[in-house]
């Protein structure tokens, strides 16, 4: 008989680690043992009878096999301190914790096709300042309030300082990702409750939002209501991101977020002017590029605009298309290059818009060719009317009072 694969052994252990006993049985057993233990150890025990022995007409000695195996994914009940009531936490409680930012640290691990590909430890001082520590030792610090970034390679004693140009984009933030779960799911805007389980020493309750392009699950501590683990699956793209090992309200040393290279490092600097030259290359993007990019996305998604226009969604859409069509790398590159370029230009134009105005994307579910339904609108600088793009990719100027509701 051939030897079993090492990964298969680990998978089996992983399956074993997930085995959990139903909460009713757990509660019953723990209560029974607690009661017996108290009686056993009590000095008020009166009779010579060993209650323990009476109780222990033990099935242990029979070693009978299971009458049934019921797989449940629920709770460990806490005794001598009251039970932990999972029903007392609802999604609104978690949202309340997520609505206001607090300094935190977390570990991000990315899996592509089930294999861990990269990750980092993130320290978030605030929405402008973050520090990322990568397994290869590289450290990246961003301070969007300046704006400037610093990348250091400690082993090489080398650093790159970059002055970032233009209005900084919003930083990907765990809280925002979790809040976005509220923005619609396949279950009709309902956040599913997944029950209770122990994670990283916390008793947690799970909440899930399944959407067409991403599937997000948050496990929150039932006492603090703070996240213990976030899992984001980019549907169709084979990518899963796990965010865990949280520390909240961390009193960070400000020096961790300095964007000045440490003493003794060789420093390469990219000035604002050089960055602006790079940015200049993108400023030639126009509204027409935006329209074409939206068209490309809708074509890739077989005639429907995506639920969101954020870059990760665009990337997910492309990956999903490649996976669905089972394209080789060469075929994918040949076929998608025109789409990718137009999407990239659209994205660059939207980045320009973000710098000067707020835009609203409402294309979720809108069909390509639908002249009635809007896909997005924004208020150009110094304009009294909004630019609105419709499902048929026509663009119109619309007064604020006439904006689609």
């Amino acid at each position: 008989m051939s030897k079993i694969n090492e990964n298969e052994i680990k998978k089996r252990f992983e399956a074993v680690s997930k085995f959990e006993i139903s909460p009713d049985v757990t509660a019953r057993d723990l209560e029974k043992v607690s009661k017996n233990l108290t009686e056993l150890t009590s000095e008020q025990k009166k009779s010579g009878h060993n209650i323990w022995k009476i109780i222990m007409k033990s099935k242990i000695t029979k070693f009978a096999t299971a009458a049934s195996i019921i797989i449940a994914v629920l709770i460990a009940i806490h005794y001598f301190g009251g039970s932990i009531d999972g029903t007392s936490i609802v999604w609104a409680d978690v949202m309340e914790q997520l609505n206001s930012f607090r300094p935190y640290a977390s570990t991000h691990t990315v899996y592509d096709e089930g294999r861990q590909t990269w990750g980092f430890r993130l320290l978030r001082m605030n929405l402008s300042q973050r520090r990322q520590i990568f397994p290869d030792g590289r450290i990246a610090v961003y301070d969007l309030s300046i704006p400037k970034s610093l990348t250091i390679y400690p082993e090489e004693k080398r650093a790159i300082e970059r002055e970032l140009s233009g209005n900084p984009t919003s930083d990907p933030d765990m809280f925002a990702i979790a809040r976005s779960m509220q923005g619609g799911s396949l279950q009709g805007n309902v956040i599913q409750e997944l029950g209770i389980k122990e994670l990283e020493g916390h008793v947690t309750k799970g909440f899930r939002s399944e959407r067409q392009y991403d599937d997000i699950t948050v496990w929150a501590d039932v006492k603090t209501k703070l996240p213990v683990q976030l899992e984001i699956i980019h549907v169709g793209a084979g990518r899963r991101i796990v965010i865990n090992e949280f520390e909240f309200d961390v009193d960070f040393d400000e020096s961790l977020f300095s964007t000045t290279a440490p003493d003794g490092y060789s420093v390469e600097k990219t000035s604002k002017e050089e960055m602006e030259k790079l940015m200049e290359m993108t400023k030639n993007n126009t509204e027409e590029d935006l329209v074409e990019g939206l068209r490309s996305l809708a074509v890739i998604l077989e005639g429907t605009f995506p639920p969101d226009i954020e870059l990760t969604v665009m990337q997910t859409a492309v990956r999903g298309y490649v996976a669905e069509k089972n394209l080789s790398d060469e075929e994918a590159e040949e076929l998608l290059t025109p789409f990718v370029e137009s999407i990239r230009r659209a994205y660059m134009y939207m980045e320009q818009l973000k710098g000067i105005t707020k835009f609203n994307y409402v294309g979720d579910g809108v069909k390509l060719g639908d002249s009635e339904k809007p896909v997005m609108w924004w208020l150009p600088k110094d304009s009294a009317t909004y630019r609105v793009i419709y499902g048929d990719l026509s663009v119109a100027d619309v007064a604020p009072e006439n904006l689609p509701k």
Partner: protein
Amino acid sequence: MRNKQKKILELFEKSGPQLYRLLGKLTLNQDEVGDLLQELFLRLWKSKSFEKANDSFSYAYRAAINLAFEWRRNRRLSFQSIENDCEAQIDSSALGKMIAGEELQKVLDATMQLSELSRDVVVMHYIEQESYEEISKRLGKKPQYLRALNAKAIASLRELLASNENSEVDTNSVTKR
């Protein structure tokens, strides 16, 4: 006596559920876990070594592993196929099918055949999902050593599982004659 009582009750309060879950995972048998937990605490109550142990939880944890594998050993002597049990309820999920099948039982049975230290490290790392650093603190061994031990344990498990499969095939062949 009072100290001993306090010690054991505190251990149960703090770690009873965790030990319960550990026993569940190592037996995959929710009907037996309650009795096993009782048995565990009975043994701890009677144990002089436990009374003297500085780290009650670590002591109890290893005792729980020992008890679970003892149960597995004795269970094999009076094996009754799950398929023969009319009341077996198998979850329709893939996980349920996997557990209802023999794969997980086999890997646990093979683990039982490892040395005590290897077995404990495998349980702590792969089943309880503890880091090597955490295990190192519990067992007083260096993380690098534990990693190497685990790698060797996995290799041994591959051999054991293949060997166990061969034994079953041989037994069946004999039976069929």
